[in-house]
């Protein structure tokens, strides 16, 4: 198959992955402000989309390797080919959409890693994967991230409820807007980068771009737009899981949880211990549920989420492996791969229409309805 055609396919799929990454992760920042009524659902996703768009342009540091040493690439290792990237992306996209259908907040990065691992194992053998890196950079942090964020969020919630009195707690809604915006911005600077990295790596591998050069401007623009549009379309199923199904979130809890999420993500990305945003955000929501007296955490839902995390890498890897195996047949293999991927995407999309969940599913209490006295002027207009 013509190499430029494969490159074009990889770019298309990478951008589609970027889109799924956006709507999968809207919930990390915006689930709690939507749940507490700090932001109207549509306003929240629009704000998150803008911040992701801006964030994608802010960071110029591009990770040299998309896999962070997980796959032994380069000298003495294997050359990851555009076809393997294609197979890996199919695995990542299919798993991301499947977990979205189930409303599970799973890590998009893990789906991407998983898909690539599966594809590389088939294409280049198990020896191409560094097992030590897999454990120390992905598995252990996956356990530590929710525990850390949960603990911090628990303590932050205790502080918030100890200091404030009941009638003052509605004010936390204003604070939530700022903390959730920070999470969105941080997300934009990180996650769009991964897709830029994938596309740039592919262009370099195909000889269409100089080695050691950064992403071209059109790649940055395309990735920024893809993640922003994805974010705006809002993964309402996941927002519902994180904002409603784990525990009932009050404004003070939302603020505490987001403060914990922001602090944990920023600390982890600046002090050299990478943690997944999705897992941090989920841990924070659970922590704040445990931290408020009278709140209950639905551990069944939390358990489903944890199970989703456990199987994300092997499941995306399995799909990526099958895709890589089929792609090994040559031209027609790649055609079959793409057809199967499109069929899977369409199937999941049609299946999701059976029980649609969107912004209308989020009934919000009138802001401050129980706290502030109604103003007479506006009361007439309503």
């Amino acid at each position, binding site marked *: 198959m013509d190499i430029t055609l494969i490159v074009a396919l990889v770019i298309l799929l990478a951008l589609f992955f970027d889109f799924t990454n956006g709507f999968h992760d809207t919930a990390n920042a915006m689930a709690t402000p939507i749940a507490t009524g700090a932001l109207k659902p549509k306003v929240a996703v629009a704000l998150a989309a803008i911040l992701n768009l801006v964030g994608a342009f802010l960071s110029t*540091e591009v990770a040299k390797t998309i896999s962070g040493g997980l796959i032994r690439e380069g000298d003495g290792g294997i050359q990851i080919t555009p076809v393997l990237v294609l197979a890996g992306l199919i695995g990542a996209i299919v798993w991301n959409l499947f977990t979205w259908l189930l409303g599970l907040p799973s890590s998009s990065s893990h789906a991407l890693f998983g898909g690539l691992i599966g594809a590389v194992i088939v294409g280049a053998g198990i020896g191409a994967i560094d097992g030590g890196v897999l454990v120390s950079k992905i598995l252990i942090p996956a356990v530590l991230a929710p525990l850390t964020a949960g603990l911090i969020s628990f303590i932050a919630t205790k502080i918030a409820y100890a*200091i404030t009195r009941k009638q003052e707690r509605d004010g936390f809604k204003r604070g939530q807007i700022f903390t959730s915006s920070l999470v969105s911005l941080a997300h934009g600077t990180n996650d769009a980068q991964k897709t830029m990295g994938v596309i740039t790596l592919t262009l370099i591998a195909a000889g269409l771009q100089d080695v050691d050069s950064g992403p071209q401007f059109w790649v940055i623009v395309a990735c920024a737009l893809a993640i922003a549009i994805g974010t705006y379309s809002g993964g309402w199923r996941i927002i519902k899981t994180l904002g409603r199904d784990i525990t009932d979130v009050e404004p003070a809890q939302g603020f505490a949880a987001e403060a914990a999420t922001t602090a944990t993500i920023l600390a982890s990305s600046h*002090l050299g211990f990478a943690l997944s945003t999705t897992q941090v955000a989920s841990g924070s929501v659970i922590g704040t549920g445990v931290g408020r007296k009278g709140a209950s955490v639905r551990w069944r839902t939390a358990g489903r989420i944890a199970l989703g995390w456990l199987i994300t890498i092997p499941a995306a890897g399995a799909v990526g492996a099958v895709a890589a195996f089929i792609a090994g047949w040559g031209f027609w293999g790649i055609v079959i791969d793409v057809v199967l991927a499109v069929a899977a995407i369409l199937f999941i999309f049609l299946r999701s229409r059976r029980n649609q969940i969107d912004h209308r599913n989020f009934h919000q209490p009138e802001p401050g309805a129980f706290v502030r006295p109604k103003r007479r002027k506006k009361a007439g207009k309503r």
Partner: protein
Amino acid sequence: MTIAWSSFAIVVVSALVAAGLLVTLFSLALRLGSGVSTAHRVGSIALYVLCGLVVVYGIYLIVPALHG
């Protein structure tokens, strides 16, 4: 396989301090803001300003161009 436990500990402690600080400042601002005396009001506004500074520091950390 090495796990950087020391850097993990630093992450936990600094995130805990930062989140705890922000929540404490904002909670105190809300608490004082509902007071009636001028001193309470001024204190409340000062605390909101401190919260704003924490948020600005967060933006500083997020944007690589700012801290090189």
